[in-house]
């Protein structure tokens, strides 16, 4: 597709359930980012994948959060045993990386997660 695609666009779940959020980056983009956007909290970095390198997981808020990127393309963010404070918009972005210089990030529409 032309842009970064995220699904689902909206997810309502009960506290304690697991959720999976999917990101399909722009073809050819080697870098993929996940961010969380909460009201009044700005954009919180979660995790960064770049090519075949080990991902930078330094932003994941707890061990309930994990992400993987299969085949250097699609990524899945998994939240286990969801809590109400996990409610937020989860944004995915991708970019080209040339000689360690990251180009413009292109963002998806986001997945809005509501934990009841």
């Amino acid at each position: 597709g032309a842009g970064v695609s995220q699904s689902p666009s909206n997810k309502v779940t009960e506290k304690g359930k697991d959720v999976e959020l999917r990101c399909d980056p722009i073809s050819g983009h080697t870098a993929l980012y996940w961010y969380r956007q909460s009201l009044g909290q700005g954009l919180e970095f979660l995790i960064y994948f770049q090519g075949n390198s080990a991902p930078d997981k330094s932003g994941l808020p707890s061990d309930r959060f994990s992400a993987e990127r299969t085949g250097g393309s699609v990524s899945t963010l998994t939240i286990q045993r969801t809590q109400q404070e996990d409610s937020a918009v989860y944004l995915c972005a991708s970019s080209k990386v040339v000689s360690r210089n990251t180009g413009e990030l292109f963002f998806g529409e986001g997945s809005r997660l509501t934990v009841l």
Partner: protein
Amino acid sequence: AQSVSQHNHHVILSEAASLELGCNYSYGGTVNLFWYVQYPGQHLQLLLKYFSGDPLVKGIKGFEAEFIKSKFSFNLRKPSVQWSDTAEYFCAGISSNTGKLIFGQGTTLQVKP
């Protein structure tokens, strides 16, 4: 640790007023800086970026930003705002050491018609 901070959290202006939003960064290595905008109900989009060269960069919709290395700043400016500029603005930076894009807290701009 790398960080980006924005000084103004909520700015209210009248149309035709001038705008300046502050952004400071703390990084090691070569830094690339960006301003992103999020209009109500829309996704984030790039306003402008600085990689190297001329420290005064011009972006879309009449916005510009100046990279001042000595002040670790990358403030966003627009000479005359319009009602349609009402949005949330995010400063962001990447260090070549990490490749990780970090955002500031964001500034909500409200332009009164």
